[in-house]
């Protein structure tokens, strides 16, 4: 994407009026998006975005210039302007004795069949298969939308510290929404699968299964009763994925919130912040998971970061900047949506590790409660840890058994309180995928958890 000579020259210009370090981030992203709606391919989009971001760091501040003019002259102008934005220019022009060292990276997500090599008709065919399976599932299925996306992102990081690191990330996603109608009642069910993998993803993730699952969830919703409102014992099934850990503790462990004491977890390193049954890691090195990659967007290799171990707070998620400010090692969590954004500490694959209780025993232990099988989206207020997330599949529990399905249940609680109150942890583990938003930037993530029991949680429903 850029020669080493040009990269050296641009970094040199950026640092010509002072500054501690500078870094170039190049990106070229090709994406194909197909949407089959009501059996018709009604949106087909594909294209190329490319650009560069140049950061200049001076103490605790970052100056960042970015754009998509990639010729040498434009880059030099960008670097020149950036160097002039230093408010207190200290040194005169200094020469940068820079030899790049290619950073060796472990390949985390091998790609067998690059989606760019797959003909368009095969991609469309996948969506028709998903659509057919969803419609065939039940006569009450009235609408199906099937969505396909592949994104290939080539990135290169060149830093004044000698960093030279690059990789190509391949994301692939299938998403199906089914609408079921019964009389006047219309309900939606969705199923999403996504990984960092090539087109071989579909050898395991059959479009038929994705379509049928979306249909099952929609049908379940039309037969479900409105959720009750009040406080209940809640069992979160491993099938629910990890929205809870993502919202209830993941965001609060991002080091930029910690650094400014804006998180409920700030200043609690080494302290008990969760039940002794709870261990939380964020692991960017798990092969092919949606939040995995070989390096982060600052060229740091990804790692498995232990955040909470047996209830004790052990560490945080770092970008290069927060690691430097807090005088610790980067964890490979400096991520950005694109060249147009500054890197921030972000989650990758956030996991509550399994415990020892068989999941059936957890269900059997609850006399009256709510069993959550699938979670939808959520949101957290990092300062207080207060979170909300909704359930797309949930049941009442009576006498240790699943009873009727309920709909429109929202779980409302406080992250640190919920994590401390967990009193049973299952021996199973289930994954979910999503796109996490923070400061206007979306990044691909996954999360996972075993079956968990929370003794008391507010359920926001309509039935009283």
């Amino acid at each position, binding site marked *: 994407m850029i020669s080493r000579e040009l990269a050296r020259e641009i970094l040199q210009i950026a640092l010509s009026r002072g500054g501690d370090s500078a870094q170039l981030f190049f990106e070229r992203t090709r994406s194909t998006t197909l949407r089959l709606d009501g059996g018709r391919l009604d949106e*087909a989009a*594909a294209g*190329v975005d490319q650009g560069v971001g140049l950061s200049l760091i001076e103490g605790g501040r970052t100056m960042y210039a970015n754009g998509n003019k990639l010729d040498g002259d434009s880059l030099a102008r960008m670097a020149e302007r*950036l160097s002039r934005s230093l408010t207190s220019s200290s040194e005169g022009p200094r020469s940068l004795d820079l030899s790049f060292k290619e950073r060796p990276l472990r390949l985390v997500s091998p790609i067998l069949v690059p989606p760019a090599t797959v003909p368009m008709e095969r991609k469309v065919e996948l969506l028709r298969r998903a659509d057919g399976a969803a419609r065939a599932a039940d006569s009450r299925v009235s*609408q199906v939308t099937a969505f396909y996306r592949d994104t290939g992102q080539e990135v290169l990081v060149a830093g004044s510290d000698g960093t030279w690191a690059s990789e190509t990330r391949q994301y692939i996603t299938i998403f199906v929404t089914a609408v079921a109608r019964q009389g006047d009642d219309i309900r939606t069910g969705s199923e999403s699968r996504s990984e960092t993998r090539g087109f071989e993803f579909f050898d395991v993730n059959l479009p038929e299964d994705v379509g049928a699952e979306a249909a099952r969830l929609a049908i379940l919703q039309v037969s479900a009763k409105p959720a009750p409102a009040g406080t209940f014992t809640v069992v979160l099934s491993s099938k629910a994925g990890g929205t809870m850990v993502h919202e209830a503790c993941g965001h609060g462990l991002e080091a930029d919130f910690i650094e400014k004491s804006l998180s409920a977890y700030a200043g609690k390193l080494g302290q008990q912040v969760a039940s002794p049954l709870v261990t939380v890691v964020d692991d960017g090195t798990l092969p092919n998971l949606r939040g995995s990659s070989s390096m982060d967007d600052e060229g740091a290799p990804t790692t498995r970061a232990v955040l909470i171990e047996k209830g004790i707070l052990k560490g945080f998620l770092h970008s290069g900047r927060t690691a430097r400010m807090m005088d610790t090692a980067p964890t490979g969590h400096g991520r950005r949506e694109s060249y147009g954004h500054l890197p921030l500490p972000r989650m990758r694959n956030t996991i509550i590790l399994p415990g020892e209780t068989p999941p059936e025993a957890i269900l059997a232990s609850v006399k009256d409660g709510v069993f959550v099988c699938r979670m939808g989206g959520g*949101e957290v207020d990092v300062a207080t840890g207060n979170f909300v997330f909704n359930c797309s599949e949930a049941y009442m529990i009576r006498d240790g058994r699943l009873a009727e399905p309920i709909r429109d249940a929202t779980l409302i609680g406080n992250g640190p309180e919920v994590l401390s109150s967990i009193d049973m942890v299952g021996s199973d583990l289930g994954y979910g995928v999503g796109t996490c938003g923070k400061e206007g930037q979306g990044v691909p993530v996954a999360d996972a958890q075993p079956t968990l029991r929370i003794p008391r949680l507010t359920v926001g429903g309509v039935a009283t």
Partner: protein
Amino acid sequence: MTNREARENDSSLDRALAAARTCGVAGGEAFLEDHSVFSVSVSGGKIENLETQDVRGVGLRLFDHGRVGFTYTADLSDQGLRDAVDIARTLLAHSDPDDAHRLPETDFSDTPEPEIYDPLVARVDPQEKIRAARRVEEAARAADSRVTRVRQSKYTDVVGRVEVANTSGLRRSFPFSRVYASIEVNAEQRSELQSGWYSDFAVRFPSLDPMHIGREAARRAVQKLGATSTATRRANLVLDPIVAASLLESISPALHADNVLKGKSVLAGRVGRQVAGPKVTLLDDGRLQGGDHSAPYDAEGVATRCTMLIEGGVLKGFLHSTYTSLRMGAAPTGNAFRQSFKSPPRISPSTLYLQPTGTARESLMAEAGDGIYITEVRGLHTIDPISGDYSLGASGMTIKSGRLDAPVDRIGIAGNVVDLLMSIAGVGSDLRFMPGGGAGSTTLLMDIAVSGT
């Protein structure tokens, strides 16, 4: 933008259109976005981040006998544009034909164009902009001693140009400018932390009021200190203008004609029927002075206008793109927008707002009696536009005999958006425009399910 850059844009648009003309399809449309962003964030008076951005890109749609293909590129070289045309042709070949996929004709509007551009924004000294971010922070800290931390005080401006042209002879372009400032602060009392956020915007730099933004964020954080939950019950709610605006924005997909066509709107088939309280008049206005999304044309080059969606509680119509207006035989509304050059045009509102009913905020509070004043909601993105069901987390203050009483948090409000529209009993005169589009007034809702402990 310099004259040279403007000429470069014209040439990129013309080259893209020329490439579309010669590729053997019936029609084409090129959309060009070119903008520059300046933003600075401060904390403790010190600059944390200073960012500049210059982005240019083209979105291209090809049309042929009801088929359409969309592509985009940030590579505006001749080769980059030729590659883009090839991609769009491949996608077009696989798309399912539909007669209504056509280019819009050039239309005109009698409504004056909104003022959305001030060339001076680009010439304001960066030091002035940094000072604005600092003043927001100082105002927040000075407002209350319990404001102890500032997450980010940020100033951002965007200056740019949008151009769209098609092979039927339509050609529209307009410049725009916006300045924004926002802040998130924490208030602290004993060991309790609460956060408050506020943001505002303007077309011109001098119109931005940094002091107000800082004070308002502080007020919102401090107000939440000491919050407890409330009993599960049904209650009258008074929505803060910000909450009312974001709630409206979240239910707007039910008003998008494409969702209606696909049977994915809770409002489908209800035109002419009562869908909201008799005091409810809902408008979308693309030429409203002061709206963040106000613009003379949409992303297909269709003139924007004021569209009556609900009048006296009766559903009147929907928001349209060229495609949906042709499919439904409805008048165009100029509501096809793009998030960036990378998105095809999609239906979204300009400024969606409830017409004030001529009631002051105080009267609405008095009418609520013993209710809850809602200042924040969480989980808006989980509202289902098809069933209309919602279940949100919320915080605010209890209302006792028409007056604000004590802070509440971790409560749930749930129901169906049609019932919610039906429950609207009054819309205050304090209409406020939101950054990112939308507008809201203090709004009274009667008898809503609230869950707590």
